[in-house]
């Protein structure tokens, strides 16, 4: 096993262990919330997934800008991998939020600011991936993807503020809320600890998935090179 392979395996192992620990923490250590009961435990994974989604897209923004500056295609490769992973976490965020919403708000879906903004964010990154699919020239693909990654991410906070001027029913646990928020709760100390641990776990999971995806992409490119060499021989 090569060195980089072994590092990757270690990273995978550590991630799995942390996921197990955080699951245990969420179900065993975190206290039971007074009004919502067990269903509140989704909150830890839901928020962490949302955080990782935003992190992934921030990474895409930065690396897109770096690619436009330097022209090194490796940055674009990481940016694309980041979008794929970010999209998965954003969908997880929406799904877990939806599952929580059914018992808490008695509806699967509602067009409140945060939900809507995250949906739009997901659509932007689906569009990003479709743009990549639609362009054949690799250099142009990387350039356009970087530009769209920047435009897309810049629009997310603006979208959020735009929609927020409507009344919101999404609970605001961290920071101030606007209007009536049903299902808000204030966090006790063990809850904060569990949430921070879940944040850390999911962030590690993101980097783990990113590393694996990059390795896959590197191998795929190597295969292409070998194929080209065989064809021309």
């Amino acid at each position, binding site marked *: 096993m090569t060195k980089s392979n072994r590092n990757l395996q270690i990273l995978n192992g550590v991630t799995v262990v942390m996921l197990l620990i955080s699951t245990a923490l969420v179900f065993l250590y975190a206290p039971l919330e007074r009004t919502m009961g067990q269903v509140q435990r989704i909150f830890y994974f839901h928020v962490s997934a949302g955080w990782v989604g935003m992190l992934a897209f921030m990474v895409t923004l930065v690396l897109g800008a770096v690619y436009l500056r330097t022209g090194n295609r490796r940055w674009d490769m990481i940016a694309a991998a980041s979008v794929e992973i970010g999209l998965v976490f954003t969908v997880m965020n929406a799904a877990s939020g939806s599952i929580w919403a059914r018992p808490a708000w008695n509806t699967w879906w509602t067009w409140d600011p945060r939900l809507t903004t995250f949906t739009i964010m997901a659509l932007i990154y689906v569009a990003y991936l*479709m743009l990549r699919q639609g362009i054949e020239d690799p250099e142009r693909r990387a350039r356009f993807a970087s530009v769209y990654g920047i435009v897309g991410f810049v629009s997310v906070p603006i979208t959020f503020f735009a929609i927020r001027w409507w009344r919101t029913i999404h609970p605001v646990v961290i920071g101030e809320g606007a209007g009536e928020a049903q299902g808000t709760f204030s966090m006790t100390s063990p809850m904060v600890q569990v949430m921070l641990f879940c944040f850390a776990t999911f962030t590690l999971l993101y980097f783990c998935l990113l590393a694996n995806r990059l390795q896959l992409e590197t191998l795929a490119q190597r295969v292409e090179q070998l194929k080209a060499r065989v064809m021309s021989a």
Partner: protein
Amino acid sequence: MTQSSSNSEQSSVISEQRLIGSERPTVDWSLFTAYWRTVSAVLWKDLAAEFRSKELITAMVVFSLLVVLVFNFALQLDKLTRESVAAGVLWVTAVFSGTLGLNRSLALEKDRGSLDGLLLAPVDRSALYFGKMLGNWLFMLIVQAVILPVFFVLYNLPVLTPLLLVVIVIGTLGYAGVGTLLASMAVHSRSRDVMLPILLLPVAVPVLVAAVNASTNILAAAPWDEIAPYLNLLAVYDVIFIAVAYMLFDYVVEE
């Protein structure tokens, strides 16, 4: 960078400095006017080409009318509800026909190869962006000018208020601003016609939200406090995205 000279006595000194080749001493107004000459040249080219054939505007206007018609049948509403969704219908129409206009405008550039010709010119690439953007914006405004009276008749609403016109002007500016940048990318992709809406609509959501809400409130004669935030949002969006597009357009059109 540039230092503006306030004293004409220094002009001889300054010209000496220019000969020596040290830092630029004055604001070179000729560059500034050259930039705007390019912008207006591109804009004039688009307008002139369009007014000869009128194909783009005709297509956009007819399409807008059809969309209004379809909405009329799709949303079978009583009078009161119809008035409350009128702003939404107006903006959906604007968005769809705007997409059409953007697509056609940039596809023509690419297919005729005129974009390559423009790129060869020794001008700042962003001037091309502004020229195209202003042209697209103007086309959208012309279409709106035709559609608004139709709305006035069909929905019996006070659509010709100045404030509503301001919203339409600012909203379409933001949409055309982002749309021009994204359309320049979309024309190179395989599924060209459908790629632009996919790219543009999620990013243009703030424009839609703010414009529809502002328009609804204006039509309902709501107090200024309810309209102002949306106007602010539109203005902020326009500034941010035109700046972003200005910075990124070079990367899109380089070969």
